């Protein structure tokens, strides 16, 4: 059921990337500036397609929105130390993949409060790290690693090329020999040996 939201009782249907639909309250959805800009005033016929995000991610995002419906108006980022037990549990129970999906979805839906908390959480994770540690944490390969990786790849490519050439050569030989009748095969081998003998004698 979808209709222009004027009351928090109104429910909206949300469609995920799997094509599944589920209900979200108007009050929760209104925390999304993207929703407000796109659907709040005109309403939506049928489910609202947020099909870039899977059901689990969207449910997680709207779980947060439903929870924070009754909180006071958002007034800038809150320090992680000031987060409630519920907030902390909400973040702690997510694995990294889910956390990244939630940030991306929250960013797309433009839910300021959730995006801010996520970003502050990442900044906090990087606090106290030196450059090398930061490189490791944010999974950026160092210049040396890149160079080493490139060398390994070049070696691998060269080796693969050699193997492929050899395989092609072998296949060609096998194919040629297989195609010849027995008598002709004997003749070919004899010719080859004669040529070899002649080349030795010439030398």
């Amino acid at each position, binding site marked *: 059921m979808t209709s222009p939201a004027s009351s928090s009782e109104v429910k909206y249907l949300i469609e995920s990337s799997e094509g599944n639909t589920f209900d979200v309250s108007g009050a929760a959805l209104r925390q999304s500036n993207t929703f407000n800009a796109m659907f709040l005033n005109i309403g939506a016929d049928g489910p609202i397609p947020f099909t870039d995000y899977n059901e689990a991610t969207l449910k997680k995002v709207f779980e947060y929105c439903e929870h924070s419906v009754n909180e006071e108006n958002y007034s800038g980022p809150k320090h992680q130390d000031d987060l409630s037990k519920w907030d902390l549990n909400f973040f702690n129970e997510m694995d990294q993949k889910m956390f990244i999906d939630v940030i991306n979805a929250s960013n797309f839906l433009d839910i300021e409060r959730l*995006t801010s908390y996520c*970003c502050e959480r990442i900044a906090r994770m990087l606090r106290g790290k030196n*450059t090398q540690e930061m490189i490791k944490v944010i999974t950026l390969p160092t210049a040396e690693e890149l160079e080493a990786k490139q060398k390994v790849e070049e070696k691998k490519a060269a080796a693969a090329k050699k193997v492929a050439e050899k395989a092609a050569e072998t296949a060609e030989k096998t194919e040629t020999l297989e195609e010849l009748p027995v008598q002709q095969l004997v003749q070919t081998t004899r010719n080859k040996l004669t040529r070899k003998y002649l080349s030795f004698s010439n030398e």
Partner: protein
Amino acid sequence: MERSFPLFRLPENVIVHVLQNMDFDQLLTISLVSTKSKRLVTSLGLRACDVFIEISRVISLNVEIGGSRFVLYFYNDSNVQNDITLPVDAFLRFECKRIQSSTPFNFSDWMNHIRTIFFCIKSPSVNFYRGCERFEVQSLKDAIGNVNYLSVSSKATDVYNKEVLKRFNAPNELSLERNPFDEACEIQKLFIQSFEFIGIDNVHSLDDMLLVNSEKVNFYRPTTQKQFNRFVKHWIRGSNPRLQHMSLSIDITDSVDREVLLKGIECVGVPEEEQLKICQNNDVVCDHLVQIKREDGTSAVIAVNRIEVFLNVHFIVLY
């Protein structure tokens, strides 16, 4: 959550949001990770309002951004060579935490990096202290570039100080803790330059005072009432046309008569309310203030404050 986190795979506006939650030390550290991180930190548009560099046995780089300050130390490791063109690590002041760039940085590279990410448009202030001789002056000049304020140490050798004055030759403001020159004419060459400010801790003659071509001048060594009196008379007749504010002290140990200071000078008192305003505007404290007028009509005030056997005198021109 796992120990690694693919920050740079997030949308750029999210990365910027993460960076906005970082303090300056963290921002500097992450800006050294890659060209992308440097670009993103730069995109935050942080502007350093002041940069000052202190050079002793160690070089400290102080950067002030919007009321906050962070300090980096260089060469505090005694094993590091004195050649500032060689790569060097930076250390954070309070945590003594080493900050390394992903590619080796020398002091000049550090300066350029910080200038870029924190938009340091204003030239830095540079103070030389005891132990600064460790560093070659020309290399310092090459790394630091033009300076806004230059303070030359009284603890460094005259040869070194002369080299500093020669290389860092065009500051807006200059403070000399000691005159490194043998000839009076050498220091007078500095007096006739048009600095915004010049301060000198050296015995100065009336000629020196009359040669001053800076807007503000501070003589740290005491003068006499008679010399100041003669200076004021010259000013009334038109000398030191650029002067706006002169601060000096007068030793009155041997002089009971304070009237010598203004002897023969036509002056009028200033209403208390106006006195207060002048003192506030010029950040001075005084117990006596009089107004004088130059022949061309320009007014000035002489504010005097007695502290034990010294008179602190401020000569302020009112434009």
